[in-house]
């Protein structure tokens, strides 16, 4: 029997959702200050309105939903997924007020893409937007990469037991430290350290490439945010093709590969366990699948004679594939070049890389390296069982911070999530095809959205049917939160209607 949520359940959910939305409003102060510094007064008003709306929602729910109850598991999942929806609706306000979006749906698409570190966008005339709005786009993706719940945990929550449920609801399950609020702060410590070093490196490189100091600093900061969060937003419509520089590409590759690694791996390295990089199942899996997909794409491009020399060929293939595999979405080729130059095999190789994706508990999306590792180990274990004597006990283990033995429960969970991802990839590809797009291109774009990558071959555009925009928003959300908390939110609404 389904139990309808009681008033106190709504209050708990409202209270914590409100807190997170206050966090989103506070985050908007950064682009507001940016616009004030650069004298972008119309954009200043956009952010004042948007901050005010967040605060009205946040403090309004605080007043209406007074309760001393802590979160239980279902509350945590509903708050995590529900707050992403509210944060998207309210976070879209600066985009829409800027006049650069065709509709509110387009604005919401861009904001969900930012939070989920996808990087697809529908904003038009990007090359003429305000610094404040560009700061907001990149801040969305940087904050979304760490998790907007993580932000709230860091700054707005006291260490309640329910806080951990919120954290898990956002698709993270690694506990770096015993206390979840300390874990959230550890994630920020790692991220902010990388922010300072990465921005400095990119800004210095930008100045060496001919950028003015202020532009070099802003571009350095924004490209860092896009890279570290594996978001893929860039300040110009040319994406990272803008810089025409091997050194800029190398620095950005190092940042987005680091950003795609598990925070537990970062923390292990941070605390002195450097060998973990070589032993971890996710880094091993990533190295193997990246090498294979680069090899396939390089072979196809060499056969087609797209690039004039081996260096250009490898540079382009490695950059796009590494970007796709880490679910970053940076690109040094035009979007349509995936179709007009790379051809079907290049498209398929990139699609596979995006589908596999980055590491669990990282800023990236996709099926994840750890699941590929677990499935591979389980497959090998099954073969060993088949060829061993009946009574033999065949065990298998993998290394992820510590040695973990494979059991049926772990393999089943891994398979469930993998099948959910594959179904979502299939659904987006089929809907794209039904809307009149080529199947391969629909699959590329659908996988890109659902794996939170953001590479585009030209399907995503402001003229795309609304049904595809809505589906991609849902796919980005489901992919980022890894399904369970979104299903919990759906279940919450069903019990509201059908429960007793």
């Amino acid at each position, binding site marked *: 029997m389904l139990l309808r949520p009681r008033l106190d359940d709504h209050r708990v959910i409202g209270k914590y959702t409100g807190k997170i939305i206050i966090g989103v409003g506070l985050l908007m102060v950064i682009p507001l200050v940016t616009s004030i510094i650069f004298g972008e007064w119309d954009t200043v008003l956009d952010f004042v309105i948007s901050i005010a709306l967040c605060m009205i929602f946040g403090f309004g729910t605080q007043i209406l939903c007074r309760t001393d109850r802590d979160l239980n598991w279902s509350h945590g999942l509903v708050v995590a997924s529900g707050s992403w929806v509210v944060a998207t609706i309210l976070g879209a306000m600066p985009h829409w007020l800027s006049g650069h979006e065709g509709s*509110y749906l387009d604005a919401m698409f861009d904001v969900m893409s930012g939070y989920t570190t996808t990087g697809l966008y529908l904003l038009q*005339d990007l*090359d003429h937007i305000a*610094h404040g709005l560009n700061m907001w786009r990149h801040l969305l993706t940087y904050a979304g990469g760490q998790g907007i719940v993580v932000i709230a945990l860091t700054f707005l929550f006291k260490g309640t037991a329910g806080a951990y449920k919120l954290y898990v609801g956002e698709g993270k399950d690694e506990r770096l430290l015993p206390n979840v609020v300390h874990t959230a702060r550890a994630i920020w410590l790692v991220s902010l350290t990388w922010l300072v070093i990465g921005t400095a490196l990119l800004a210095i490189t930008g100045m060496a490439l001919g950028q003015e100091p202020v*532009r070099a600093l802003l571009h350095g900061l924004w490209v860092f945010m896009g890279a570290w969060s594996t978001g893929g937003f860039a300040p*110009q419509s*040319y994406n990272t*093709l*803008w810089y025409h520089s091997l050194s800029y590409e190398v620095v950005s590759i190092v940042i987005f590969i680091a950003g795609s690694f598990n925070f537990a791996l970062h923390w292990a390295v941070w605390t002195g366990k450097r060998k973990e990089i070589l032993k971890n199942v996710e880094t091993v899996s990533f190295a193997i699948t990246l090498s294979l997909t680069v090899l396939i794409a390089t072979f196809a491009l060499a056969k087609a004679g797209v690039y004039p020399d081996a260096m250009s060929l490898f540079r382009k293939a490695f950059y796009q594939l590494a970007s796709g595999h880490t679910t970053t979405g940076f690109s040094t080729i035009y979007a349509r070049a995936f179709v*007009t130059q790379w051809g079907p095999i290049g498209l398929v190789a990139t699609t596979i890389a995006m589908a596999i994706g980055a590491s669990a508990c990282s800023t990236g999306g996709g099926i994840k390296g750890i699941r590929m590792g677990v499935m591979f180990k389980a497959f090998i274990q099954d073969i060993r069982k088949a060829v061993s004597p009946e009574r033999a006990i065949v065990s298998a283990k993998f290394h992820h911070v510590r040695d973990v033995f494979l059991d049926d429960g772990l393999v089943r969970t891994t398979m469930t999530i993998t099948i959910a991802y594959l179904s979502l990839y299939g659904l987006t590809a089929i809907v794209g095809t039904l809307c009149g797009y080529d199947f391969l291109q629909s699959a590329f774009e659908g996988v890109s959205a659902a794996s939170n990558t953001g590479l585009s071959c030209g399907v995503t555009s402001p003229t795309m049917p609304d049904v595809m925009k809505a589906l991609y928003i849902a796919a980005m959300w489901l992919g980022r939160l890894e399904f369970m908390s979104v299903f919990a939110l759906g279940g919450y609404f069903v019990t509201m209607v059908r429960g007793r």
Partner: protein
Amino acid sequence: MSRLSRSIAVAALLAVLALGAGCRAAGTPEPSPNEHSSTELIESPKEFDGSEIAFAGEVIGEAMKRGDMAWLHINDDAYYVKNVEEGAQLGGYNTGMAVWLPADLADRVTYFGDYKHEGDIVEVEGVYNAACGEHGGDTDIHATSLSVVETGHVVVDKTHPAKTAWAIGLALLAVGLCVADRFWLRGVRGHRA
């Protein structure tokens, strides 16, 4: 009709109303000034690779000088005459070409397109490379000449009175709720104590 069906119907109706609101009408976008637009060059790389072309559009961002040479980015999209900040109707994404040319030619550009500027409209002549060997496979134009067709200008950042009124009104309401929340919280705590 069951309660679930009714709820789904109401939610769908609200979603349609919410999404339909705020749609901005698309106008007739400014067409590319070029015989072969950047979109055509990208769509048919083999056809144009290595050919001499003339390419015109708005210079955006900045000139990135590398020794005696420089990179410019020239957009021939719907915003090359007037951008969205000046009131141009939405006409899709930005599109353009990266141009590699002598730095002294880049010096002729006065305004680069951004939020506060509509950039100079220039025309360059040179060779189109679908995948340039000199630049790591980038798609670019190696230009040998540049002429300024129309000098750009500063774009005035106007604030709308209605927006200002909304900003003030909503900010006051937000502050009011914040104070009420703090006051109420303190009141409850005081009462409990």
